[in-house]
């Protein structure tokens, strides 16, 4: 993962990340298809619980599986890009399908991200989402400033604070009812060390 990123690539990502008014970047090729498949299998074996509160969202989540090596590797990569020393906070594996969504109220109701924290998203889906929707939209003071599109094997890093919120756009019925219509994401809270 980190080893796959050259110093030049890291420098480019850092430049892109810091170039945003609120630092944010998305880039591809972070993991390979086999790593993603292995991760999907491990999370599936661990299980998901269904989250369904109409005013907040509808999705499946696993927030108990601890893959310390993966989390540490991703935190190190995020540290290289952001220039910050980071520790891992909350980790959530989220599975979204047709009809799934998560509103900012869901993000607000969860424990808030402290100032100086980051959110890393790793997309370990099997294939591109065959539907419209699923984007993770980050907002600050009512304005969307960054959109993370569903992109298998890609990663996104966004600076969070108590005034930055995220929502996941509703996934429409255009998604085919097959495994490739599932969106698998790991969301990692990274805290300043």
């Amino acid at each position, binding site marked *: 993962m980190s080893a796959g990123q050259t110093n030049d690539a890291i420098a480019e990502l850092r430049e892109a990340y810091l170039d945003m008014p609120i630092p944010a970047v998305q880039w591809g090729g972070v993991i390979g298809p086999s790593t993603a498949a292995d991760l999907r299998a491990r999370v599936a074996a661990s299980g998901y619980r269904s989250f369904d*509160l109409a005013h907040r969202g509808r999705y499946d989540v696993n927030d108990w599986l601890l893959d310390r090596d993966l989390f540490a590797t991703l935190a190190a990569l995020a540290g290289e890009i952001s220039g910050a020393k980071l520790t891992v906070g909350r980790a959530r594996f989220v599975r979204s399908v047709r009809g799934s969504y998560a509103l900012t109220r869901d993000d607000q109701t969860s424990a808030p991200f402290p100032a100086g924290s980051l959110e890393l998203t790793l997309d370990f889906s099997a294939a591109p989402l065959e539907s419209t929707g699923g984007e993770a939209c980050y907002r600050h003071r009512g304005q969307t400033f960054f959109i993370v599109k569903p992109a298998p094997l890609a990663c996104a890093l966004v600076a969070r604070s108590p005034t930055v919120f995220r929502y996941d756009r509703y996934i429409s019925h255009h998604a085919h009812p097959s495994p490739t219509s599932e969106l698998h994401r790991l969301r990692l809270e990274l805290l300043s060390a």
Partner: protein
Amino acid sequence: MTPRFIDLDHLGDPSLALDWAESAPFPHIILDDFLRAGQSKVLFDALCEEALVDMRDEIYECEATAVALTHPTLRAFHDELTSDAVRARLRVLTGKELTRADCRGFVYRPGHYLLPHSDHQEAVGRAVAFALYLDTPEAVTGGELELFACTRDVDANDEIVATITASLIEPAPSRIVLFEVGEISLHQIREVTAGVRVSLSGWFYP
């Protein structure tokens, strides 16, 4: 003067007030044949001549007219909806003194939706929401108005801790749905999967 669009006799049925008060999960009423015969098509044709804009944000994806309707037929309907005669019947029905209303056209095509929300905004003062469904050339699949029953936890700052579907209302032509806007008037428009759903919707204000 005889109303052009709205069947006042139907709206004036005194039993509706009881239906409103006893309905769950929050006060609402479903009234079929709200419009006089043929007027649903007249309003649909007028709406077809109104400019629509794509709307896409956190909770919705649809097409809508501007907040102020411009077509003379639609403006005439809006005037009738907020006339003394209609407001007097709505006062009996809802127990609320209503003075004015917003009215806007909405078009939902396949893939369009409106996710769960309450409409409630303290500073805005919406009292009663309405949705009047119009005739469309293609029958719609999906697009139901879904009302949720909410369970709140008094020990957790009244946070909503459970939501279940309490009512599912088909968007039948010439049907109007009215409901009381409040903190827990949680509702959504389910995704349209085929056809087109067309409505005139908005809120009445005190």
